[in-house]
């Protein structure tokens, strides 16, 4: 029973009583607590006051005792007597560890100590110490607490002797002895007292360890607060002690010493009476609850008996005892309720009985379905574990079919073209595995394949004797009377069937039919799988073969023989043939160049005419694959050569694929076989692929050889050209030098003065000759560089000198054109090494060009250093060079081709030579330019060039 009515009744009752009692108890406790706290606070105050008085009286008593020696005439006593009195004082007051007598002037006269030797008449001046000055001024002096050996708390007390000669007695008081006073102070059961000095350090505490460790009590809130408040009124506060307990704390100050005495009582001690009162209230509460509970129980019970009966009855009905009837005769709503229960139970009983039957049926169905699913899973497992072989799957399928379809026997039949035969069988009946039957509608499997539908003959004997003659004959022979046959359909085509047979006549159930169809589908999946797998493997093998041949091709670019051998080998391996030959066309003849296999091949030197009599010949002649499945069956005249060779070399079948290049057969590849029979479509396809690869290989070799030959020829031609140019320029220069020499002599008047007209003409001759010489020199330089004859003459040079030379050579030209020419050489450039003459030539060329292509504005030469290189720039404000021309200008015989440049003349060799010279130095030359704004040519050369750098070619 959950939280029933009984529980609720009782709870309500008890709750009410509890509430009243709890309120009562709370009020009671509150008053008790208040009273008690007030009382404790009063006691605490008194205790604190008393404690401070005790501590003060301890100190005052010592002061009083010292007073016995502190009279004016004492100082005049003999030293032995003074010493004796000090000793006596120490014996009377154990707390005094040391006594010192200071005379009227503050000088030490006597020191008596318990711990060390007595000192007489040391006369040490202590007049400046507060112990002396304060005592003289105030009669009594209490020093601050100090610690000997950093542990023992001590107090210096000084008492003035009075009079003019009196002096002062200073006593060192061991405060450990206050312990006795402190421990005697009793507060409650666990309360205690302690004393702190004006700094908040602990002077006395029942736990002496805390004192000796010099505990700083300021961390306690009550101590810090007490020190902060000026008033010496005692306050009582709720606080915590050193170990964190809650305490009720009161304190009182000793004004003379500025010490504070604390009295503390653990709060739980204050609370004890409250706790006692609480326990009393708790007991009362328990009693009240007990009474309330009993009363509630009695009342509730009277109400609850019929309800319980109702509940018990309902429970029995609920537990399945549907025949049970509740009997309540209370004559009220409860009795009506019971009747209602009884009627419901009757109705329930009825419907329950039909339900049971339905559940049984459904369970059987489920079990069967589960078995079938298991079978399906088994078959799928076999399918996945047997990807290459369909037979285990088919065996598993027939086994499952027998088991789950209620048949005597099961067979799987496969179709081959227009026939079918059994491939898997399970069961005791005779099966026709291996025997082929025609594909027609006379048998159940045939009909199912033709109709692509399931065929069901529950009783074969009742079938039409004519239409189903074959089936009836089978049934008779193999002694079965019922058959169910489902086609194996792939892409809408029947590839076979699965048949269930049974000795006894009778219909198969729809479930069995459905199941057989699903087995049929699984068999198809398995067959499909194997087919896909085989196809994949073959395609992979073919790719491997192609890959291998391509590798051989790439490794053997110049020699065709290894490639063809590889092709022949691959053809044998992948076409599933015994023997392969590769033939090459030589004009109207062909010969064998590669062979693989056990059959005899043509000797390499043998040549046969290209006729249609053999497979290779026919392939080459027709340009299509020639397939001779049985040579002996062919026409002996048309295929005479094939007949002859077949006999000689022992082959009966041949397949030849042409190797075609640009529509012409350059050879053929042939497969041969000693037995007659057709080659498969796949073999033909593969052989054609190999033929294509053989063509690629042969083509490759041809192209490679051609390119090699061509480049060799080009190289020779280029060298001839350079040599020719070098020789030619030299031959041109010699006579030109003579012409110039003689012209100069004539202009200089060595041959007598000339008429003005002749003189002008000669000057033109001279100027044109010089120009021609410059051109020839350029050609010669270039030729030398091209021919690999230019050698740098490496020597030290100074960039500044080089720039000056170039400027002085071009100055007149610039002046003539009316454009500015300037140079900026960075200061502190190091001297470089390189071919100074050639570099000067480069710079001269650049500046010359700049002046040439600048009509107004200026040309500037800049020289600077960047790391290990010099940067020489020539900046002009000329026409500029289009971006597409910027690369070309460094090539031989190239100029920016436009009208403005053409009229400037030149060979177009200058920049090309410059570039080569700079590159020989290991540097680079670049240009930046914008049309209409000018150009900047920049030469970068290493500061130091390695000596004797050969002109590389």
């Amino acid at each position, binding site marked *: 029973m959950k939280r029933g009515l009984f529980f609720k009744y009782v709870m309500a009752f008890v709750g009410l009583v509890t509430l009243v009692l709890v309120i009562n108890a709370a009020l009671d406790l509150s008053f008790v607590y208040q009273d008690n706290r007030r009382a404790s606070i009063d006691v605490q105050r008194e205790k604190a006051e008393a404690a401070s008085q005790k501590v003060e009286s301890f100190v005052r008593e010592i002061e009083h005792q010292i007073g016995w020696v502190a009279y004016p005439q004492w100082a005049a006593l003999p030293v*032995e007597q003074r*010493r*004796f009195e000090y*000793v*006596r004082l120490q*014996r009377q007051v*154990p707390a005094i560890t040391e006594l010192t007598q200071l005379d009227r002037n503050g000088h030490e006269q006597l020191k008596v*100590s*318990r*711990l*060390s*030797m*007595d000192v007489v008449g040391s006369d040490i001046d202590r007049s400046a110490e507060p112990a002396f000055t304060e005592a003289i001024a105030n009669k009594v002096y209490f020093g601050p607490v100090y*610690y000997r*050996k*950093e*542990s*023992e708390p001590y107090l210096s007390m000084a008492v003035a002797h009075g009079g003019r000669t009196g002096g002062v007695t200073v006593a060192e008081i*061991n405060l*450990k*002895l206050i312990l006795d006073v402190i421990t005697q102070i009793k507060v409650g059961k666990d309360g205690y007292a302690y004393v702190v000095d004006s700094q908040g350090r602990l002077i006395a505490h029942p736990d*002496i*360890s805390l004192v*000796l*460790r*010099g505990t700083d009590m300021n961390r306690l809130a009550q101590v810090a607060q007490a020190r902060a408040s000026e008033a010496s009124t005692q306050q009582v506060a709720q606080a915590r002690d050193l170990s964190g307990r809650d305490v009720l704390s009161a304190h009182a100050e000793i004004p003379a010493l500025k010490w504070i005495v604390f009295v503390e009582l653990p709060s739980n001690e204050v609370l004890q009476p409250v706790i006692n009162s609480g326990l009393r209230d708790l007991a009362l509460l*328990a009693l009240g*609850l*007990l009474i309330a509970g009993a009363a509630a129980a009695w009342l509730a019970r009277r109400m609850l008996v019929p309800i319980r009966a109702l509940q018990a009855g309902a429970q029995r009905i609920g537990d399945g005892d549907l025949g049970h009837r509740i009997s309540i005769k209370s004559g009220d709503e409860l009795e009506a309720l019971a009747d209602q229960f009884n009627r419901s139970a009757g109705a329930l009983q009825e419907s329950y009985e039909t339900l049971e039957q339905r559940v049984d049926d459904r369970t059987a169905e489920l079990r069967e379905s589960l078995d079938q699913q298991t079978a399906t899973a088994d078959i799928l497992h076999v399918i996945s574990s047997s990807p290459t072989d369909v037979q285990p799957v088919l065996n598993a399928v027939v086994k499952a079919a027998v088991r789950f379809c209620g048949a005597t026997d099961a067979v799987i039949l496969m179709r081959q073209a227009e026939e079918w035969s059994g491939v898997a069988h399970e069961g005791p009946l005779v099966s026709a595995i291996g025997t082929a039957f025609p594909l027609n509608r006379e048998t159940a499997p045939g009909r199912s394949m033709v109709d692509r539908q399931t065929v069901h003959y529950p009783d074969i004997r009742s079938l039409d004797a004519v239409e189903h003659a074959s089936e009836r004959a089978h049934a008779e022979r193999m002694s079965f009377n019922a058959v169910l046959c489902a086609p194996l359909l792939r892409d809408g085509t029947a590839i076979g069937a699965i048949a269930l047979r049974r000795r006894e006549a009778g219909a198969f159930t729809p479930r069995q039919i459905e199941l057989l169809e699903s087995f049929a589908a699984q068999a198809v999946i398995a067959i499909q799988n194997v087919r896909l797998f085989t196809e994949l493997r073959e395609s992979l093998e073919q790719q491997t073969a192609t890959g291998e041949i391509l590798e051989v091709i790439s490794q053997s670019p110049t020699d065709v023989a290894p490639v063809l051998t590889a092709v022949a080998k691959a053809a044998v391996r992948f076409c599933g043939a015994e023997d392969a030959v590769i033939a090459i066309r030589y004009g109207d003849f062909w010969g064998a160049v590669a062979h693989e296999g056990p059959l005899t091949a043509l000797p390499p030197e043998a040549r046969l005419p290209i006729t249609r009599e053999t497979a290779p010949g026919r392939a080459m002649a027709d340009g299509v694959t020639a397939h001779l499945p049985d040579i002996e069956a062919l026409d002996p005249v048309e295929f005479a050569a094939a007949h002859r060779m077949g006999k000689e070399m022992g082959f009966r079948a041949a397949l030849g694929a042409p190797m075609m290049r640009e529509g012409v057969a350059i050879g053929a590849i042939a497969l041969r076989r000693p037995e007659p029979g057709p080659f498969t479509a796949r073999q033909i396809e593969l052989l054609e692929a190999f033929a294509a690869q053989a063509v690629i290989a042969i083509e490759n070799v041809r192209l490679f050889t051609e390119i090699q030959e061509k480049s060799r020829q080009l190289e020779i031609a280029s060298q001839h050209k350079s040599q020719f140019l070098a020789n030619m320029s030299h031959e041109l220069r010699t006579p030109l030098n003579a012409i110039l020499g003689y012209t100069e002599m004539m202009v200089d008047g060595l041959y007598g003065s000339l008429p003005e007209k002749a003189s002008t003409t000669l000057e033109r001759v001279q100027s044109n000759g010089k120009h021609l010489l410059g051109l020839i020199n350029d050609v010669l330089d270039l030729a030398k560089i091209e021919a690999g004859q230019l050698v740098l003459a490496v020597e030290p040079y100074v960039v500044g000198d080089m720039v000056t030379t170039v400027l002085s050579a071009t100055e007149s030209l610039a002046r003539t054109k009316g454009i500015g020419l300037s140079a900026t050489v960075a200061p502190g450039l190091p001297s470089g090494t390189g071919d100074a003459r050639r570099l000067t030539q480069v710079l001269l060329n650049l500046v010359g060009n700049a002046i040439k292509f600048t009509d107004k504005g200026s040309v500037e030469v800049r020289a600077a250093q960047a790391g290990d290189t010099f940067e020489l720039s020539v900046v002009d404000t000329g026409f500029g060079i289009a971006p597409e021309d910027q690369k070309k200008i460094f090539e031989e015989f190239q100029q920016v081709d436009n009208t403005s440049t053409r009229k400037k003349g030149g060979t177009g060799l200058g920049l090309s030579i410059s570039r080569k010279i700079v590159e020989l130095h290991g540097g680079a030359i670049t240009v930046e330019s914008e049309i209409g704004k000018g150009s900047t040519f920049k030469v970068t050369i290493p500061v130091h060039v390695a000596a004797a750098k050969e002109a590389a070619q």
Partner: protein
Amino acid sequence: MGGAAAVVPRVAFAQKPIPRVGFLVAGDPEPAWSLFKKAMTGLGYIEGRTVAYEYRSADGDGSQLDRLAAELVRLKVDAIVPILSPAIVAARKATSTLPIVFFGAAPDIGGVDNVARPEGNLTGVFSPSSTLAGKGVQLFRAIKPTPAFGAIVNAQDPFHVPLLRDIQAAATAEKIDLVSALVESRNTLAGTFERMAEKKVSGVIVQPSLGLVACAEIALKLRLPAISFRREFADAGGLYSYGADPAEIQRLVAAAVDKVLKGAKPASLPVQQVTRMELIVNQRTAKALGLTLPPMFLAQADEVIE
């Protein structure tokens, strides 16, 4: 429904093994041993029921102390109480983990760096004996003229170094010639006293760890006025003793042991200095030595043995 009476659970407390205290003494075992047990009893301990003692005495043979200390450590006592410096040194050598509550001059021989906050496993009680020695010598001058004074110290006790230093300082201050003698082993004790007596010293001060009773008897036999720091010396026939009250010493030691047994760490217990000093005079010895004690001297005595 069950009864409403609440049942107070009875928890069975496991019988805790009673704590054991190892007492290791160099020099005279008495009265220290008895006083310690008495102080423990005063704190509520009952021998055999709430506390057990392992008592080890070297009987003046310092070479035994290391072995005895190791034995106590092996027994895994809850606290070791070494009495006097040689025992402290032996206990320190034997363990750095078991709590040690000593009486002796550990601060003078470097055993404790910080008196208020000791480090490690060591705490205890000490009396400033080396400064008291000076006081003792000064008192002696009140009895008879003292041109030369002897000091017999224990070579096996490291405390003899600071002790001799302070005695020398006192002698220098009082213009006394100090004659010191080191006792290497207890076999040579009597011989050392005899040689000291031949040196015409007025009196001699004796280091307690040599064994005060034996020393007092030898000195009396040689008629050599002898002083030391502990009451038992005067009781055994020494002329007088000036030093800490043995009962207070053991009360303080027992209080510290009590705290250690209740779980306090020695490092949390400051080393305490004895407060009460007492002068015990043996009048019989004085008479036997033919010395007349002046009233001033007697006035300072806490006890006079007649």
